[in-house]
């Protein structure tokens, strides 16, 4: 069975600093991999996704993620965070995007001024 682990429930970063949010998955085959963001009182929005090809994928608002098959990881990065990046970030996997997504527990990102 697939599973997703986001080991950090909360991450605090100073504005302008770099960011990495960790995600590890368990699956017998490489799944579709997603990062979603949830702003307060909003639904989830897709940041980026990966299935194959270049292991570094670019997303919206300067976010990127790197897939590592050897580490079963899909970490999210941003070079310089802005206060507006404060949100909860979810990593998810799916064997088929028309089927259910398996979600991590989410990481709340707090930006210090």
């Amino acid at each position, binding site marked *: 069975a697939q599973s997703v682990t986001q080991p950090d429930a909360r991450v605090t970063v100073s504005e302008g600093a770099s960011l990495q949010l960790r995600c590890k998955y368990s699956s017998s085959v490489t799944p*579709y991999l997603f990062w*979603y963001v949830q702003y307060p*009182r*909003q*639904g*989830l*929005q*897709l940041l980026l*996704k990966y*299935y194959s090809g270049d292991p570094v994928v670019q997303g919206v608002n300067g976010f990127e993620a790197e897939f590592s098959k050897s580490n079963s990881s899909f970490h999210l990065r941003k070079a310089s965070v802005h206060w507006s990046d404060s949100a909860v970030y*979810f990593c998810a996997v799916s064997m*088929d*995007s*028309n*089927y*259910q*997504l398996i*979600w991590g*527990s*989410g990481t709340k990102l707090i930006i210090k001024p």
Partner: protein
Amino acid sequence: NAGVIQTPRHKVTGKGQEATLWCEPISGHSAVFWYRQTIVQGLEFLTYFRNQAPIDDSGMPKERFSAQMPNQSHSTLKIQSTQPQDSAVYLCASSSTGGGTEVFFGKGTRLTVV
């Protein structure tokens, strides 16, 4: 494109009452999902329709929860005899066919059972 529309945004029900939540997926999307989100449990899959047919309801509490998709333009989630533990944000999402496509979420319905 108005996105996935969920109504109402907030609903307060008394314990034992029925609650019906509505979802209008994005036009042309063939897959509709329902999730429940709480602080304690996080995001939980409830059920999934493809082309209006129920595909997987493995996440649905069997006794009081039901979901329907009578036409391609809306889906409903009904909770009978609501209990305080049903309090949560219920999220509806839709996607088009094809591998790797994005799942679009509504803003959710916050259900509070008092």
